């Protein structure tokens, strides 16, 4: 397992920004690391919009926000001394995991991240953490908690 091959899973949250900064500090200017910034697309729920147009508009806004965050995250890493050539960006579209025999939308973001970690043979997986209460975790779930409990074959950094 190559611990220096890092999968840095982000959304556009402050917790993700902290995870990016933490990774930047640890990796610094070292040449033998690889960092993949990964975003797993979670489009807004269609059912919460009154019509197709307003949902599509919200999807476009969300995609733009994430693309901009990913560029920003790369800039943060570079500003912290990380070599640009070791950083890659991956935006995992929902179309890449929707429509499979068993609809995977309900499998959650954590499962998609862990799948990406396995497929890419990443030795380190980094995520941010919101710090939710037990009640919130029960009702809404938590990506970082699922990853802590279920990830295999890698080190996990959870940045709070």
């Amino acid at each position, binding site marked *: 397992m190559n611990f220096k091959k890092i999968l840095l899973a982000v959304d556009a949250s402050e917790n993700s920004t902290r995870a990016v900064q933490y990774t930047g500090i640890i990796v610094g200017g070292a040449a033998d690391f690889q960092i993949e910034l990964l975003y797993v697309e*979670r489009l807004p729920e269609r059912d*919460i919009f009154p019509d197709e147009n307003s949902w599509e508009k919200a999807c476009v806004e969300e995609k733009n926000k994430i693309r901009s965050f990913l560029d920003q995250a790369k800039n943060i890493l570079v500003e912290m001394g990380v070599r640009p050539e070791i950083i890659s960006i991956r935006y995992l579209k929902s179309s890449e995991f929707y429509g499979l025999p068993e609809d995977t939308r309900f499998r959650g973001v954590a499962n998609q991240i862990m799948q990406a970690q396995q497929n890419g043979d990443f030795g380190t997986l980094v995520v941010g953490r919101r710090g939710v209460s037990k009640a*919130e975790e*029960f009702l*809404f779930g938590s990506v970082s908690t699922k990853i802590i409990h279920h990830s295999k074959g890698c080190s996990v950094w959870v940045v709070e």
Partner: protein
Amino acid sequence: MTSSARELIKEVIPSFPVRHLGKIYTDTTEFMNINYGDVIVLQGRNFLVLRDEAERRFGIEDPKYWVKRCRDLSLGERYILKLVFHEKFEQKIGPLKINCYRSPNKESRILDLIRGDYRFMQGTTLIDDAGNPVRVLEVIRGKSLDNFVEDIDMDHRTYFHEKFPEILEKFMGSCEAIKCMHDNHERHGDVRRDHIFVEYETGAFRWIDFDYAYESTENPFGLDLFGLGSILLFITGKGVHDNVSLNSSPSGREFFSSLRPDDFFLIFPNRLINLRRLYPYIPESLNRVLMHFSIGTYVTYDTVEEMLSDLRQSHKDISSL
């Protein structure tokens, strides 16, 4: 009102007072204007409006102006018409708040999915002239599960031995129904004890109201599972046992002071969930299911099937008491 609708009303409901005959609506967008005596026309079917529905909770009547009690003027059958109302509101669940949305399309989709499955309310969607999907729901003649249980006039021990096994069995059927929704990538969205109706004629438990939608979360079934746990607690305890009810007598106060934080519900920390402390004859296997929803739990259910699997054992234990 046109003469044809007037004639239909006279023919189907001769007792309806002519002076109350109102307007004909083919566009239901302005649902607040549609009142008693008006007729809603949907894809060639005429529905006479009798009244607005209302929800009764905690003794307060909350009118639902977008839900109309109606009679179909062709056969005289009663229906509930749910008109389109895109409402967004903050729902409080214990200490937590979440954004909730009313989605007519979600309910229409689920009505199509569960057609012919009488564990659920039945209905169809008709489109008005403005393109609004109006849900035309069959009326369930029965009472809500909370009223059904509360109206059983006996002490808890007798209830638990005589009535509860059958109620639990039917509730497990309701859990199976929710599992069926999840298996089809749908969520009920508003699982609560007054959203199960107990039909007078058959005694069947039937789910109603599927139009709540939420933003996506990492635990897509969490809210439905929480609702099922909450109902299980209610039917097992024959009501809610919380800091108020338990402290209402000297012996209750003494009992309450002996409880630990872990004995309470994770989402409502004033509600007792470790019911075996109160009713020691509740089998351990059933209490263990409840304790998955307690403040002290380390293990929660991710799926309805996990909960059902434990409940099947509980049901066996209860049946052999």
